[in-house]
Structures are given as structure tokens and as C-alpha cells.
């Protein structure tokens, strides 16, 4: 039986066109782009073309793109590189409480180095109120980092409004757009951000290539020191096959965005409505302001692990919380911040659609899901207190 893959937040399959674009660089065209000989010069050109394509996806200029190895690196780079370069101005940073760990833990490291960090709370839908960001700003705030969309619960943030607040105070604003970029419009000038993280494997590009956009003229301390690649800001031999793949994937994402979104939304709405129509299954995140392919639900009286395993036996791959989190088996910091009661949070699964998913697959999931839930609930009926139910 074909697996039904509904975990596009942790990884998307590589598109055949992207694989084709990468293929020559995986083997034949292997020269180091820094080399002066013919092969190296040719590959330097391929690198710059990929940079332009990646930049186009977010409405930036090529020179504003720094390639990194993954989103985590780009987020760490943004936090530490920007903070260090502007430390004379101040040592206060504002983030939200539902950021990815690469932001939150980078913030924690900065705290150990003497920075102050304010973590702005979110509402029940996982939304950051721009007003709360405004209130968090101090005279020595140098950096605000709020994600564009949350990969665990799918809620979209009001980035433009937050950017407005940051601009009024002359503070650098970074957004982690890993979950949104390539799926929904992510134009840096429209959003008004000074820095933005994107990663190829979230829009059908390869793992191993991600990027940090940094607005031209923004001071930034290099992250990896060494050979001086990426204008000295990020040393290390460029992962050219992956970068070329990222460029191609970006190009495709930009040209197919509308049709992809339309079909994702259609599938998503059907899936979401079907799932929450099951008794005591609750949607996490914002009902409308959310990523087009994203459903996060908490299933009462069920633990997510047996639920995932049971679904897997039926050929359906889904995730619990974020990919990074699922090993830890702790309740997610995002759900906690949203005030989802621990008992409910434990029964959370995330289903994320991709462009390869079909109507028939949704039908299969909607057929199997209630049966699996019913079976598991019979085995383990943890009572949910009344007050918890009323919160939902």
C-alpha cells in the first residue's frame, strides 16, 4: 500500500524538476565555485543564478541572500549575527513564546552572554498581538524576531503590523519564514522585514540548502569564519547541488504559488472539517489565519504516540508537534503557550498537506481516523475534566 504522507512540515519530497536541475552538479559539474579554473568559474555562475532565483521568491536582491545549510543555522545566524553587530546600541531582544527552538535557544544562549530577552505571549489561537510587541520594546531593544507562520499549529502572524512597530522604533526585525516561504506570498518589502529565514526543503527543494535574507546595508557579524564565501559573512564551501536545487524550487514555488495554494486549501478545508467533526477533536491554531496545507488537532482521551503509530499501520504518516520535538515526547512549548491543557496537548497530531496529496487520500484519512480514535479511546479513557472542555 502506498503511504499517505501528511508530514510536509518536517520535510517535503523533492520535485523531479528540482532533482533534474541538481543532477549535473551532484556529479559532473562538481568544481568548487571559489576555484579560478574554468569549472570553478562556471559553477560560480550557477551559484549566482540560484541566488537570484531564491531572491526573487521573496522580492529581494541577490546580494541580500546568504546561503546556509539549514533553517536552524539561518535562525542562529540572524539572532547572534545581528545581535552581536548591534550590541553597542543595546542588549535587549524581543521574541515570541512560540518561536522555533532555533530562535528560542539562540535567545537563551544570548541571555547567558548578558542579553535580556522578552518573550511575548500568544493568544489561544497562537497569534502574537502586535500591541504586545510594542509593549515589550525597551530603549535598548536591538532585535525583534517573530515567526511568519508557526509550523506546529499553522497560525499566521501579523508580520506587517509588527514590522511597522519595529520600524517606528528603529529596531531590526527578523522573521522566521521557514514554514510559510514558498507556500504563501513572502515578499520582504511588503512584509517590511530586515531579515528573513527560508529553507528549501519546505518548498520541494532539497535538504542542505537554506538562506538568510538580510536587507542591504544591515550590519551583521559573520557566523562561520574561514574561506570568506558569501561575501565573508558565511564561510564554507558552498553546497552547490543543493543551492541550485533551492533556486529551481524557488522559481517553481513563485510561478505556481496560486494554483498550489488553491488546491491545498481545498484539500485542507475538507480534511480539517472532517477531522474536527469527530467528537472531542479540537483544532489548534487560528481557524482562518493559517497556513493553507496545515491542520493541527488535539484528540481528547488519546495519546498522540499510539495515535501516530496506529495511523502509520494504516499507511498514514503524520507528526506530533514539531519534528524536532517529537523525539523529546514532551508536550509542545507552542501548545503550552497557547494555553492548551496538558491532557489535551498530549493527544495532538499535525497533518500537513503537500502538492502531491489527492482527494482520495483525504477520503481514506477521514474514513480511517474516526475508527482509530474510537478504538484507542476504548483502550484508554482518560477523563478530561469539565473545565478543560469549556476552555475549548
Amino acid at each position, binding site marked *: 500500500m502506498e*503511504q499517505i504522507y501528511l*508530514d510536509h512540515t*518536517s*520535510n517535503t*519530497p*523533492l520535485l523531479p524538476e528540482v*532533482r533534474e536541475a541538481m543532477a549535473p552538479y*551532484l*556529479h*559532473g559539474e*562538481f*568544481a*568548487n565555485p*571559489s*576555484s*579560478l*579554473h*574554468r*569549472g*570553478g568559474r562556471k559553477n560560480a555562475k550557477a551559484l549566482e543564478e540560484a541566488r537570484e532565483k531564491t531572491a526573487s521568491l521573496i522580492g529581494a536582491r541577490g546580494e541580500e541572500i546568504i546561503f*546556509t*545549510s539549514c*533553517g*536552524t*543555522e539561518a535562525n*542562529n545566524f540572524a539572532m547572534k549575527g545581528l545581535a552581536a553587530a548591534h550590541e553597542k546600541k543595546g542588549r535587549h531582544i524581543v521574541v515570541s513564546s512560540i518561536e522555533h*527552538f*532555533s530562535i528560542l*535557544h*539562540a535567545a537563551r544562549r544570548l541571555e547567558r552572554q548578558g542579553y535580556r530577552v522578552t518573550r511575548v505571549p500568544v493568544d489561544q489561537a497562537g497569534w502574537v498581538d502586535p500591541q504586545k510587541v510594542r509593549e515589550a520594546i525597551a530603549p535598548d531593544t536591538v532585535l525583534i524576531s517573530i515567526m511568519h507562520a508557526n509550523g506546529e499549529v499553522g497560525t499566521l502572524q501579523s508580520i506587517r503590523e509588527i514590522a511597522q512597530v519595529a520600524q517606528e522604533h528603529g529596531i531590526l526585525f527578523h522573521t522566521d519564514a521557514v514554514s510559510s516561504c514558498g507556500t504563501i506570498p513572502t515578499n520582504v518589502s511588503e512584509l517590511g522585514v530586515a531579515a528573513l529565514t527560508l*529553507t528549501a526543503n519546505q518548498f520541494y527543494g*532539497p*535538504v*542542505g*540548502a537554506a538562506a538568510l535574507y538580510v536587507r542591504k546595508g544591515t550590519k551583521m557579524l*559573520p*557566523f*562561520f*569564519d*574561514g*574561506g*570568506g564565501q558569501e561575501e565573508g559573512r558565511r*564561510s*564554507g*564551501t*558552498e*553546497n552547490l*547541488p*543543493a543551492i541550485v536545487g533551492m533556486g529551481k524550487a524557488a522559481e517553481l514555488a513563485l510561478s505556481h504559488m496560486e494554483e498550489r495554494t488553491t488546491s491545498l486549501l481545498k484539500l485542507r478545508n475538507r480534511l480539517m472539517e472532517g477531522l474536527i467533526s469527530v467528537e472531542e477533536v479540537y483544532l489548534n491554531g487560528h481557524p482562518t489565519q493559517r497556513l493553507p496545507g496545515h491542520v493541527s488537532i488535539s484528540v481528547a482521551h488519546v495519546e498522540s504516540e499510539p495515535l*501516530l503509530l496506529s495511523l*502509520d499501520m494504516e499507511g498514514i*504518516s*503524520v*507528526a*506530533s508537534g514539531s*519534528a*524536532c*520535538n*517529537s*523525539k523529546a515526547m514532551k508536550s509542545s512549548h507552542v501548545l503550552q503557550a497557547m494555553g492548551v491543557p496538558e491532557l489535551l496537548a498530549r493527544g495532538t497530531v499535525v497533518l500537513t498537506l503537500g502538492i502531491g496529496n489527492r482527494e482520495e487520500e483525504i477520503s481514506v484519512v477521514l474514513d480511517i481516523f474516526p475508527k482509530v480514535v474510537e478504538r484507542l479511546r476504548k483502550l484508554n479513557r482518560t477523563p478530561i475534566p469539565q473545565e478543560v472542555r469549556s476552555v475549548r
Partner: protein
Amino acid sequence: MKFPIFLDNMSTTRVDPRVLEEMLPYFSEEYGNAASRNHPYGWKAESKVDESRTRISQLIHCDPKEIVFTSGGTESCNLALKGICEIYREKGDHLIVGATEHRAVIDTTRRLERSGFRVTYLPVDKTGLADLEALKREITDKTILIALMYGNHEIGTIHPVTEIGKIAKERGILYFCDAAASQGYIPIDVEAMGIDLLALSAHKIYGPKGIGALYVRKKNPRVRLAPILDGGGAERGMRSGTLNVPAIVGFGKACELALAEMETERERLWKLNEKLRTAIESSLDYVHLNGHPTQRLPNILNMSLEFVEGESILMGINDIAVSSGSACTTATLEPSYVLIALGAGVELAHTSIRFSFGRFNTEEEIDFTAKRVVQTITRLREMSPLYDMAKEGIDLKNVTWKRE
């Protein structure tokens, strides 16, 4: 014979078809995130990652759990140096670093100097060997780390790592060894060599770009390291981020192949190396070998071909891919600091060419290269005022030059 002939295998290598074959499924059907615990895509990816970890550990004789995946050699060096300095700062603020280390090490220690660490750059002799007596002398009770590479990436000189490891151990100092240039070409045994941290890179041994590793010792002593990539806590908390599964699979296979073929390859490469060197030396005057004559990586031949500037040689032999240490050819536009450290003058760097051989080079290619190099140098020397002067018996060192 296919052109261009690639003799720049120290900059990067062609992915071995056997490596590529093993990677390809992970670009298509096997697209699980190795951290996704709950579905078969994730499981398969995880078990394949573990297999690679084991293969890599066998190349350097360590426990698979001591391997931390990174995005490449540069990140590994940054992680080792910055990670150690952050944790051990209270113990001491002094590092001893080889003068001929890769820029990923030197530029990182320069940055550490800016944040208050003291760094001693250990000189080398004219063959590129570190002075171990000087090393012993420079150690203080504030020294926390010695960073000395194994084989040098430009001249190939191999440091006596076992002795360095012993010195470090005796004084209770951590030893970081950058093996990105030497891995797979000469044997590495972190246990026998007393190495505490070791940097590796896949694309130098016919593996993919975008993946490297840092060996971090777990026992005797247990080395602690602050991550530079904070996040979900992958890789024993030392390096967060999505694991690059296809690249890791390729890295593992590349290590397996390198280990299996090391002995025969070493001999074959050394033969090619000697062949090219003797061919050039027998046809041209004023040529010098840079690096150690014997204690050298089998795949590096660095020569200075006097009176001819490196970039013009590269242009002249443009159907052969090589690199040079001349100012015009380096990323910094400074002549190679590695060659300058040998103490024979900057001219040596400006006229240097590095040939680095690899698995796919043939004898035929070396014969062609020798001919082409001799031809080009002869032509360029006809254009060189310095060659004329030397022929006239003028010592260039005594000439007063009119600089720009």
C-alpha cells in the same frame, strides 16, 4: 582523455558514482526527516544515518556516538574552536594554533582573539613541520587547546599528530586536529593519536558537498562543547538543525570506500605525484618543491616555478584545473600565508602551483600535464624580465625595485 584535467582535488572532488548511487534514493522516495520518530519515512532515514555514523567512525577509529554531523569542514572547525572556548573559558584563555592551519581555523582564532582569548601561532620549519619544542615552550597553565592539523591542504606536510597528542595529554590540554585534507588518504586513529576533536569533510573524499563532521571525544576526557547552532538539540545537543540525510548517506559511503581503498590508492597517488615532480624538475630550472619531501600527503604536489606568476600559469594551462598561492588567485588577494610561513619569501607564493591528485586521475593525464606545464612555463619565462635577469646572473634580492 577528458578535458579539463582535474588536478584540484584539494578544493573539492567529484562524487564517486558508488556514493551517488547510494544517495539517490534519499533525494526521491526516502524523504523522511530523520528526527520524525513516528512514521516509517523517519525511521528509515534514522537507521541510515546511524549506519553512516558507523562507517565514518570506522575511518577514524572512534565510537559512532562521538560523531557530530555539521554542514562541512568549516563549520566543524568553527564549532570545535568556538565551542571549546565558550565552555573552558574559566579554565584558561590561551590557545596554541599552527601557523599553516586552514582559514577556517585561523580566521576563527582571530575572531576569538577579538573576544579576549590569547592565541599563539606556532611557527613551522621550511618544510612546513611544526616545531614541537616550541609547542612545549609555549604551553602555559592557561592553555586550553592546541589546534594543529594533520596533513596540510596546500603543501601536504603531515604533522606528527601522535607526538602532539602526547604532549597535549601530558599537560592536560585538549587537542583539536583538522583532518579535512588528510582524511581518507592516510590512516587516522583518534585513540592512538590522542586526538580529542577532529574535523572531517565529505566533499574532499568523493562524497557530497554540504556535509562534514566533528569527532568529539566522549571518554578520557569527556569533551564538552557549546553549540554554535542552538535549537532542537540534535547531535548530543552539540549541533541542532535538520539532518541532511542524502548527504550523510553519501558521506558514510565515501568513508567506507576511502578506508577500503586507502592502501592501494596511497601508493598509486604517490606514484603519480613523483612522476609529475620528476618530469617537471628534469625539464625546468629554478623549480622548488614546497612542503616536506617525504612526510607529505600522497596527493599534493606544490611547486614554485620561479619567475612566472601563478595566475598566468593557471591561464596558460587552462585545460588543467589546478590552484595557486599567488595573490591574484586567493580569496583574500593576499599571497598564501601557508607558503609565507615556510620562510622562503613571498616570491615563492606568487609563483606557486598546487597539483592535487585524486581517485579519478590517470597516468596519461599526468604525462599530458607535465608536458603542458613545461611548455607553458617555458613560454611565460620568455616573457619574464626576471628570468632574463636571473640568467644574466643578477641576484633579484639585491635589486632596488620601483614599486607602485
